């Protein structure tokens, strides 16, 4: 750790590195095995004594995964739901975040605490009344119903995170613009919004991931013929039982875009996450 390297330091460093390698393998193996299984011929995958390194690579499993059940339908529905949730969440959430970060008013603290508390309500516990509510509203098995429902977790998270981003933009910037003749709205649009843009992108991407990954509500609130991508993967069985190699191909297809998105925003979101937002 220090710049000096007394004798014996090197050996302890080696020990730590060995331990680190164990951590690397433990954390990375499931990811590695998913990829290897996805790309190896299906016959090799069901070898009771599998080779740890792939001998030949194929895209056959991906083709099979796309054939077994409709893939693009669920993906399209997931896209529609996630994008709608993000757009609505951002518009509504931005207004609320502005109110909470730029105005002083009675009841503000109560609303902030409320938004924070709402994120802590376990969603699984709410599935029964939500199901009955959508049933009463005629929204069962409708994407609109699912979109409204997803706002329960995306909206509080969006408000909370955007609020954090806005608070960090000095109010003086806005005031300077107003002194220079901007209206309050003008100052917001011309000064705050450009500074906020990266945070807004990160928040949207994160909200998108949350909505995309949701499983239980998608499973319960939509019938099988309208299933979303996560449910598609969760139900991945055929009349031949579970075909693992195509299933891993499906898992790879689900994971890669989401992980890429996550990598893009993770650094920016990490700070907000510690500050009480939701996990992916």
């Amino acid at each position: 750790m220090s710049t000096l390297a007394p004798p014996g330091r090197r050996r302890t460093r080696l020990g730590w590195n060995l331990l680190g390698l164990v951590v690397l393998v433990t954390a990375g193996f499931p990811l590695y095995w998913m990829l290897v299984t996805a790309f190896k011929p299906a016959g090799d995958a069901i070898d009771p004594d599998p080779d740890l390194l792939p001998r030949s690579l194929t895209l056959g499993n991906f083709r099979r995964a796309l054939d077994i059940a409709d893939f693009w339908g669920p993906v399209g529905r997931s896209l529609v739901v996630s994008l709608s949730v993000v757009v609505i969440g951002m518009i509504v959430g931005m207004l609320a975040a502005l109110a909470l970060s730029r105005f002083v008013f009675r009841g503000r603290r109560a609303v902030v605490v409320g938004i924070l508390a709402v994120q802590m309500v376990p969603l699984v516990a709410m599935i029964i009344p939500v199901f009955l509510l959508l049933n009463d509203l005629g929204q069962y098995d409708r994407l609109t119903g699912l979109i409204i429902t997803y706002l329960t977790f995306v909206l509080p998270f969006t408000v909370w995170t955007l609020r954090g981003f806005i608070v960090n933009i000095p109010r003086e910037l806005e005031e300077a613009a107003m002194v220079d003749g901007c209206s309050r709205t003008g100052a917001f649009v011309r000064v705050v919004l450009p500074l906020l843009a990266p945070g807004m992108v990160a928040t949207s991407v994160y909200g998108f991931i949350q909505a995309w990954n949701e499983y239980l509500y998608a499973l319960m609130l939509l019938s099988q013929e309208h299933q979303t991508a996560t449910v598609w993967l969760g139900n991945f069985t055929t009349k031949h039982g579970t075909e693992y190699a195509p299933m891993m191909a499906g898992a790879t297809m689900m994971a890669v875009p989401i992980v890429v998105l996550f990598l893009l925003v993770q650094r920016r979101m990490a700070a907000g996450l510690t500050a009480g937002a939701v996990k992916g």
Partner: protein
Amino acid sequence: MSAADTTTPAKAPPPRPAPPPAAAARPRGRRTPGAGATPWLLLAPCLLILALVMAYPLVRLVTLSFQKFGQPQLWGFQPADWVGFANFSAVLGDGEFWAVVLRTVVLAGGSVLATMVGGMAVALLLRRVSGWLRTLINIVLVVGWGMPVIVATTVFKWLFDSDYGVLNALLSKVPGVGMIGHNWFASGPEGLTVIMLLVVWGAVPFVVITLGAGLTQVPRELEEAARLDGAGAWGVFRYVTLPVLKPIVVMLTTLSVIWDMGVFPQVFVMRGGHPEADFQVLNTYSYDRAFVVDDYAQGSAIALVTVVLLLGVVAVYMRQMLKIGEVE
């Protein structure tokens, strides 16, 4: 969208006597000097949506658990009658329920403990390994963190498959161990350990990365000073590092408890959509009561008990957030 239209005019000329009638209900009587109705107008769409999708279902959850609500009530053939505490006495009087509670607490408690201890160990380890290895581990952790839960669950299902799972094959390489064909889910404790591993695998990256960020805030001089005063590695950790990290640790622990009590897809998908009795946790048990047995009232009662169990943890979390001033 329409909300944006109504708020803009109200925002531009502040000394307008009354806001547009559409939004008159909410801000009336809230005459805080300076701010006026504008913040409430901005908040209105958000609060309305949350009232519909959050507050209403929460209230309904409570009322449902005091009603008789099954298939006939769902279809509207019979009205939902009030039954007082009948659902609760039925649920709480059932020995299976307490087995489920115990299982949930053990699963969540074990997961949280393993996540926090493992996460802390890895975060500390990352400070001591070579740079290239640290980068590699960080990449793998972030990728694992970003993995959708469903994907992670299916991958673990494959790793632990009894016939072709790689884990059985690897274990069988150890002399004297024959694990081929071993079914990890034949017994509850063994299967739940696998599920716990899955939960911990998914949860550790967040903890490591957050603690890693926290560790950079621990003043080096303090640790040096403690070392000069004769503290061993454990002493430095116990009396210097840990106290500095305490707020982060409290927050991570409470969040982990809330998340790990909420484990659902991991159990549900791992058991192919029909968890056996040995694998039921509070969430799947409540789901089962409602959607498999068609007793929505008892399902709600179970869910309500879960929420109440969590309230204490949520309180600790909220208090911590208020204390560190995040709320201001």
